[in-house]
């Protein structure tokens, strides 16, 4: 019975656990409960991926109403893969949250944070596994609202303005998606993704569908912080509590990218998106700008969380660059980078959380002599940073390698130069930290010790996995290629 209901359980477990955790009230009860929930969710998503790889696409009819009348949960290798990333990061970060949140938030807010975290996890997973275009909007709002809550709990008052800006931009993005879905619905009469994909070609050559395409794409790009629409991201990441930054940075934009893929490739179809509409060209230009400009801005940041937030905007550029080719190789490079970047950036933000735990600051000054005082934390940042640069033997290298291959396959060799330039910029901002940490003497005034094991353990688990997936690439590349094929072939 459990195996038949896995798609529903994937979302239901965290969704039901959230109000129950709220009823428990006491943080010392809530955290273990939430941790248990996230671990169960992770197990479910592992099972789900296994099931998809064994049996192919799973279709689950919510409420027993067959699609397109009811809401369908449709799991294929692409969303099983993304769901695994989300729930894995969800579980690891939740383990870390126990110590970090107790330190950063007053007691009565800890419970609220954990509940919001569970809701956010449920929302993100709901977006990923659903096969219904409107259901995406509903769960997008569940995850967005809970993200706003988590970000607003940051200690600095600027967390509030950052959240407000995030809320405005996020709501605009969601409303754009809603408009786009509405226009698609009015032409086809259906909301089910598979059904939409089958019925759209008949009406694809209409101005309404062109307009729907524009609205959905712009709305999702707002959510995934593609370069000129990234305004909300740096401050939101910089001022959120450490746990929230690590979780949101490694999952939320990734899920938004998945939504883009799902809409553009599965629903509208590759031919429509890349031949009828000039999506490939537009995304490619924006991706190049995203790789170059925010990475340059990152160099001048003194708040290191903000630095890595800008770096995230740049890394999103790589993923979008892969997608802009519209080929199997390109999309699988993008998916690969979704996975690898989730690990690297998650690990780095967790390490920054360790730093904040000990020093109460993430400014550049706090890094002075950190190589001596907090060697493990600093090493984690460096290894994660090397991944961002794309040094061989790290996961980042693999995805960039594939990206360059995909570019060369299309004959776009100048793009290889852009990727290289992006890596150089990443090396520059990483060097800033390394110089401060290893070549400067620590202030003697403050005694800084290494972070507690409860924080270091999850951090290093993530960081070590970036190395593991940089060496053993069978699993990730296999699944990413399979997922890209599924997405591009679509349902036709």
């Amino acid at each position: 019975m459990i195996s038949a209901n896995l798609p529903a359980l994937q979302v239901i477990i965290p969704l039901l656990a959230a109000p129950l955790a709220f009823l428990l009230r006491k943080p010392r009860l809530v955290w273990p409960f939430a941790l248990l929930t996230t671990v169960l969710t992770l197990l479910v998503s592992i099972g789900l991926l296994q099931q998809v790889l064994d049996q192919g696409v799973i279709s689950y009819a919510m409420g027993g109403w067959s699609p397109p009348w009811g809401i369908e949960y449709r799991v294929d290798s692409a969303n099983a893969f993304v769901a695994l990333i989300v729930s894995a990061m969800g579980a690891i970060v939740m383990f870390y949250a126990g110590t970090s949140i107790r330190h950063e938030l007053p007691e009565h807010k800890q419970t609220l944070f954990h509940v919001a975290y569970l809701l956010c996890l449920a929302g993100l997973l709901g977006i990923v596994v659903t096969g219904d275009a409107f259901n995406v909007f509903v769960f997008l709002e569940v995850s967005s609202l809970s993200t706003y809550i988590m970000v607003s709990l940051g200690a600095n008052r600027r967390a509030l303005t950052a959240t407000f800006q995030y809320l405005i931009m996020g709501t605009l993005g969601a409303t754009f998606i809603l408009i786009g879905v509405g226009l698609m619905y009015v032409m086809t009469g259906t909301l089910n993704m598979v059904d939409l994909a089958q019925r759209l070609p008949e009406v694809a050559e209409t101005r309404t569908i062109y307009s729907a395409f524009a609205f959905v794409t712009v709305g999702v790009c707002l959510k995934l912080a593609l370069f000129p629409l990234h305004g909300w991201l740096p401050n939101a990441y910089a001022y959120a509590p450490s746990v929230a930054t690590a979780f949101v940075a490694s999952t939320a934009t990734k899920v938004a990218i998945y939504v883009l893929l799902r809409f553009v490739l599965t629903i509208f179809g590759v031919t429509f998106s890349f031949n009828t509409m000039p999506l490939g060209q537009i995304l490619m230009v924006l991706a190049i700008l995203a790789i170059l400009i925010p990475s340059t801005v990152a160099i001048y940041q003194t708040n290191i969380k903000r630095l890595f937030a800008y770096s995230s905007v740049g890394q999103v550029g790589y993923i979008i660059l892969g997608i802009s080719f519209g080929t199997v190789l390109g999309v699988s490079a993008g998916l690969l980078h979704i996975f690898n970047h989730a690990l690297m950036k998650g690990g780095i933000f967790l390490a920054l959380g360790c730093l904040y735990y000990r020093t109460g600051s993430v400014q550049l000054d706090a890094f002075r002599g950190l190589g001596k005082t907090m060697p493990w934390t600093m090493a984690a940042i460096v290894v994660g940073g090397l991944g961002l640069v794309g040094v061989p033997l790290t996961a980042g290298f693999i995805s960039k390698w594939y990206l360059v291959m995909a570019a060369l396959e299309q004959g776009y060799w100048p793009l290889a130069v852009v990727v290289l330039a992006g890596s150089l910029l990443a090396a520059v901002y990483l060097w800033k930290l390394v110089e401060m940490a290893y070549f400067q003497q620590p202030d003697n005034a403050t005694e800084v010790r290494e972070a507690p094991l409860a924080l270091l353990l999850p951090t290093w688990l993530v960081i070590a996995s970036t190395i593991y997936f940089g060496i053993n690439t069978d699993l990730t590349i296999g699944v990413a290629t399979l997922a890209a094929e599924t997405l591009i072939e679509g349902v036709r």
Partner: protein
Amino acid sequence: MVNLIDIVLMGLLLITAFAIVRMRDLFAIVMLFSIYSLASASFFVNLDAVDVALTEAAVGAGISTVLMLGTLAMTRRHEERRPRQPHLLPLFIVAVTGAVLIYGTLDMPHFADPAAPIHQHVVPRYIEQSGTEIGIPNIVASILASYRGFDTLGETAVVFTAGLGVLTLLGRFGRREELSDGRSMYHDMILRVIGKALVPLMLLFALYVQFHGELGPGGGFQAGVVAAAAFILYSIVFGWDRAQKIISPFALNIMMACGVSLYALVGVAGMLLGGEFLNYNVLGSYPAGGQHLGIFLVELGVGITVAAVMLSIYFDFAARLAVRKLEGE
């Protein structure tokens, strides 16, 4: 005739929207927004969307306006600054977006055209079969609670999240005992008498909307909002410290969580009895009976959560106001 009403209402909406752009007085803006909401609710009735109209009137013109007024009471009333010079960039973005949308409407099926694809696919089954499959007359309620019941669970979760968020931001925690609400209108006899008469009527109406939702317009959301409005009225007239004696914040928290859990647990029950998640057919001895029970329970869950969250949000706002007053003195 219907067209004429349409045009008048749309004209009203346009005037209100433009007035909001031009106005600088925030209080007037909020009241205009309330009018906008009410006008659109009337428009929905004209478009046959009675359920949507009821919700929009209760939520947009009711709760949203109350919350905005509460915010104004805590901030300042006037929009002080002139917007920075001519807004070329925003104007440009808006013009482009609008143009794309207008362009998109050009190939749309005409307004109210019965032959549009939207009326030919998927929906016919709801209209033709829901009477036998679900067995309740209100098709909107059938779709909301059963065919697309999972959306509604998500939506209830959104409401719960909002309650959680306002609790996090404005928190009722701490020294609420010593706070009392100096702003209460308890000493105004007319208000007291009318309030006493109205509150029970409103609660009765909420119950009617809740349980009559299967037969006519209504359902958990609308009922929840109306019930919350009744308590808000009580709290405005008699002071929120008195209102909190009737229904304590602690009880509200529990209700908030219990409503969502009830909804999700009904779904889980369907799963345990061998169906899919939220499959109500298996809940009863025959499918339509199960549907009936399922819809009743989930609507109840929605109603409880919505009422509790709306009231809780209002209490959070009111408590904040009282704290500010205390600190101001």
